[in-house]
């Protein structure tokens, strides 16, 4: 090996990490400004969840538990938005709660966005998405054990007052959603081990159907629960959100809702791909440099 090449390889191993940050910054930024088209192909766990919700009996509601905090908003918020769009597109009732107090604002943000989209296109009262009839935001309470076990008995006992301060007993939707028996599936969108608690308490005790939307970093931990059937499908990270967005977009188009809505997960996929390629290149380069100089040292 020539000395010049050897020097490059040694320098490569000692490169200041800030150069790597700069390259990543550029690699992520450019595809956001000049995106190239990527259409995520739904994976089996995403399809499984979509098909389950899509064919859920009309009298069953969809419950979404916003169990994440603002730091993971980029990955998980697109999931909540896509799930809400799906439920409203097929006219299923929705109940939303938050296990984390920081999830309240995120839940509210997603509700405002999606109900705004649907109501902006509504022509009749029936087309509209109405609070207290089509959806309810139960809000937050603590401790989680009380919430998960209590909702199996009577939801209005756990959340006597909703997020907006209304008595839940007074909402028409709560006559249809009394406890887990009226919930077709509960989806926990989380950045922690909370989905495991939902299994341990709500599913073991009451047999409620569960699924989860989780950050990519936790995905490997939750695949066993999909394999065992404890979760009906799963959305893993921003890619999972993007896949679900595609399925929902197709469903909405089929239902005549061609609204050209923003899909934040899908929009991020070109940056995600570019960043992954860059990181793979870094790993390969780093390994080449390491092994080449190690052989020399020996």
């Amino acid at each position: 090996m020539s000395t010049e090449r050897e020097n490059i390889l040694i320098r490569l191993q000692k490169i200041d990490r800030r150069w790597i940050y700069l390259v990543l910054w550029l690699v992520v930024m450019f595809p956001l400004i000049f995106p190239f088209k990527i259409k995520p192909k739904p994976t089996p766990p995403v399809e499984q969840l979509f098909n389950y919700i899509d064919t859920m009996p009309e009298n069953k509601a969809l419950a979404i538990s916003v169990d994440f905090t603002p730091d993971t908003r980029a990955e998980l918020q697109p999931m909540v938005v896509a799930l809400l769009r799906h439920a409203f597109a097929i006219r299923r009732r929705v109940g939303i709660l938050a296990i984390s107090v920081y999830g309240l604002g995120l839940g509210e943000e997603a509700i405002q966005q999606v109900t705004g989209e649907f109501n902006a296109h509504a022509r009749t009262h029936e087309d509209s998405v109405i609070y207290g009839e089509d959806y309810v935001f139960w809000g937050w309470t603590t401790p989680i054990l009380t919430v998960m076990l209590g909702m199996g008995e009577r939801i209005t006992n756990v959340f006597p007052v909703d997020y907006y301060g209304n008595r839940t007993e007074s909402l028409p939707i709560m006559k249809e959603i009394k406890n887990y028996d009226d919930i077709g599936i509960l989806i926990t969108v989380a950045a922690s081990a909370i989905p495991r608690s939902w299994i341990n308490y709500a599913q073991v005790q009451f047999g409620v159907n569960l699924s989860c939307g989780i950050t990519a970093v936790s995905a490997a931990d939750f695949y066993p629960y999909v394999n065992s059937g404890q979760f009906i499908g799963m959305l893993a990270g921003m890619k999972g959100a993007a896949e679900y967005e595609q399925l929902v977009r197709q469903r909405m188009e089929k239902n005549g809702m061609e609204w050209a809505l923003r899909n934040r997960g899908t929009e991020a996929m070109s940056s995600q791909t570019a960043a992954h390629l860059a990181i793979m290149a870094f790993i390969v380069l780093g390994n080449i440099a390491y092994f080449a100089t190690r052989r020399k040292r020996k």
Partner: protein
Amino acid sequence: MNLSTDPWVWIAAILTLAIFSFLYKENPFYRIAEHLYVGIANGYAITFYWHRILVPSLFDRVGAAATPVSTKIYLIAIAIIGALYFTRFIPRISWLVRIPIAIVLGYASGASIPRAIDAEIIRQLKATIITRASFASWQAGLWAVIILLGVIATISYFFFSTERRGALKPLSYAGIIFIMIGFGASFGYTVMARISLFIGRLQFLLGDWLGLIK
């Protein structure tokens, strides 16, 4: 470029850049943003606990004339036990903190252990059992066999009660391979997660703040 005129967007953008400045090196802007985040997050949570839990569940009920005296005594007793958490700040009586901790631990363990055994062990074990239904398609059958082998090999790697000889030796080595594949998958997902968070912030900076993307 279509710069935002919303002052809150500007505040969020400046704080985001202050946090990112740590990537260059430690600096006072990063420290300010970090402390602000911790303070605001705690303040937000405390406010909610006060207004959504303590006021309606304790103060309102204890203050209401309609609440029976026995319920009031019960609520006050529970509140006093809960307040014992604060004795941590008084060294002389800090041992009292063990009382609420013991109650919470006892309750949570009692509620969790039987359910966790069911959900985490029995149902997971069931999922590894191969039946005729596992071979609904040849791919499903193949994955079922791989999962079974992976579980046995990985468990055998953590079996330390005997020397790794005979069949246990190759099995535990196979366990290492499965564990490494698991670590690889976790690392790949971790990269995706971190990049996703960065994308989210850049979407905000380039879109909501600078108006460079729609």
